[in-house]
């Protein structure tokens, strides 16, 4: 690692940019299974940054590289100004990491887990209590219960407490809401907003597109490549075409018919609707679509002009970006 010219090569100021990743690439199985290719991103201080992508996109690999658990094949990264390779020791005492898989001791109680991780960081639960109080209060009634016997949502809260116990300046949360019920997920995101207000920089990954709007900025990732980095509203705002939601009595035949129509650019199922974009996007094409559907003898045809969601943007970016690799493997 060329430490001397590191600052010159990494343009952002590490003072207010706690996470800087530049041209990170990583592959598994001796290069045969690429997981990340040329990923660069920066996260500003106090930002809630979302890494959005499907399973196997490379989210966990990027997290493991940034939290010093894995070495990248190429590229550089700095956390709070520390190099992930050289200064891994400093990074380990300044970041909090919550792995996607519940990684606390299931045979220890809630309190014992917390005390143990506090001790590993050379601190005590009492001194850090202010930071975790809001979250800890919710699991406090179960403090003598073994961690393995907690519900999914409680486990996540405990894991978050353990990740926060040493008052980290940067928090890495790898799919914290996967497998958690809707209510707990909403509560969890509220907690993240509170932590953000306390000045903690948060990098969170999720496969749920609807959670993306809760982030300040998001990066869309697919097959180890970043598709776009921007604020959620910018990403949906720059959707380049008019998006129509179409519904009919027989949704499956409608999907087949629309896909075979040369006017249609893209058509995919979205809940009970089909989301459609056309090749020529001038003016309102609702009537055009309705006519085509009627010509194909479809009943109860409804066509609406809708605002694109993050998921629409993601699908568009993922299908238009040429894929350079096969499906990468998640470790």
């Amino acid at each position, binding site marked *: 690692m060329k430490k001397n010219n590191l600052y010159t090569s990494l343009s952002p100021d590490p003072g207010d940019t706690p996470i800087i990743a530049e041209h990170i690439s990583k592959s598994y199985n001796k290069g045969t299974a690429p997981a990340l290719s040329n990923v660069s991103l920066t996260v500003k201080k106090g930002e809630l940054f979302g890494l959005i992508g499907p399973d196997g996109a490379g989210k966990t690999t990027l997290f493991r590289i940034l939290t010093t*658990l894995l070495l990248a094949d190429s590229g550089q990264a700095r956390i709070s100004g520390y190099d992930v390779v050289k200064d891994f*020791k400093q990074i380990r005492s300044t970041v909090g990491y919550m*792995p996607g898989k519940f990684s606390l001791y*299931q045979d220890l109680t809630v309190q*014992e887990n917390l005390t*143990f991780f506090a*001790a*590993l960081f050379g601190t005590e639960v009492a001194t850090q209590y202010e930071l975790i109080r809001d979250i800890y209060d919710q699991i406090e009634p179960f403090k003598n219960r073994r961690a393995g016997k907690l519900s999914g949502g409680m486990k996540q809260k405990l894991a978050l407490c353990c990740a926060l116990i040493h008052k980290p300046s940067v928090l890495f949360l790898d799919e914290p809401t996967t497998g958690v019920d809707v209510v707990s997920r909403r509560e969890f995101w509220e907690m993240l907003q509170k932590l953000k207000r306390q000045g903690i920089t948060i990098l969170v990954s999720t496969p749920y597109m609807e959670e993306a709007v809760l982030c300040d900025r998001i990066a869309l990732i697919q097959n180890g490549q970043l598709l776009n980095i921007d604020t959620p509203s910018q990403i949906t705002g720059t959707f380049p075409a008019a998006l129509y939601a179409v519904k009919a009595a027989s949704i499956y035949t409608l999907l087949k018919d629309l896909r075979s129509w040369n006017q249609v650019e893209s058509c995919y199922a979205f809940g009970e609707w089909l989301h459609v974009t056309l090749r020529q996007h001038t003016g309102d094409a609702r009537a055009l679509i309705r006519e085509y559907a009627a010509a194909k003898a479809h009943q109860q045809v409804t066509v609406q002009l809708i605002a694109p969601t993050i998921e629409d943007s993601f699908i568009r970016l993922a299908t238009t970006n040429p894929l350079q690799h096969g499906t990468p493997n998640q470790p």
Partner: protein
Amino acid sequence: MRTLRFILQKEFRQMFRDKTILAMMFMLPVIQLGILPLAMNLDVKNINLAIVDQDHSTYAQKLISKIGASGYFRIVTVAPAYKQALFTLENGTADIILEIPASFERNLVREGRQPLNITADAINGTKSGIGSSYLLTVIRDFNRDIRLMSNGQPVASPAGIEIASTAWFNPYERFTWYIVPGVLVLLLTLVGGFLSSLNIVREKEIGTIEQINVTPIKKWQFILGKLIPFWVVGMIVLTIGLLVARLFYGIVPVGSLILLYLLAAVYLVALLGFGLLVSTISNNQLQSMFIAFFFIMIFVLMSGLFTSVDSMPAWARSVAAFLPITHFMKAVRMIILKGSTLGDISPILIYESLFAIGLNALAIWNYRKTQ
């Protein structure tokens, strides 16, 4: 040091919560030492004997009752003809057939000699071999007795070399004295080699090591936190084992207990290093179980616990001579049965120390490499 204390606290807490493992750790020495030496009894008893008595004379009757009274044989049938007796051998009810021919008594009295026929089922080699030799001994005894009876005075036997042997250090030739220290060594090996490697791999498997790795914990703290608890458990197992040996078998170590514990302490460190090494090369408990099992089978079978090292082929002898368990086994028997002193076993102690240092260094080096 504070961190290490917390890690140890956590390890012991987890150990005491896992009731199955806890019970295994402490029942293991009691049950294994209580049962295994009896099961491994090398004395062959209850040999099923079929007798073909075609003579029905007083002598034949005397021979049969002498065999029955020896305590080693169970006479399952007295068949009138060899064929019937052979049938009992074939169907497994008899192990050995003794055939007493028709003119047994007459030939003995008149000619002073009479061959007998012994047929042994050689499928269970040990039983038939040892059984036949017991039977020969009984017959030899009988032979001497009838000479006395017939002549009233002993016949000068040709070239009578009488061999009397004394078993040194184990005067009553109790096999338990030989087996129990061996089982004790086996137990220590299991605790040190198996449990430690499984425990570390479990952290990998559950994923907790991931969470540990992002903390500022140091490698040596983590490793010591794993090794010390199993070292303590090993010493407790040794203590329980020695108590069982004393209470069940009356085996009181002749040599110094301190020396025994010192040797065990060093051996355990070596073995924990082995366990750590296994855990660095395996990713889940199943893998580490098989790797550990593979090596421990070799350790146990080649160390001279069940078999004599001296009767192995040359290559096996050199493997055995290399294994630390062989030397440990030898030293434990030396201390317990013979009362060997530090001077006697210091080469072994040094050899074990080298393994302790070497294996741990290799394990820690490999542990670093994988990070």
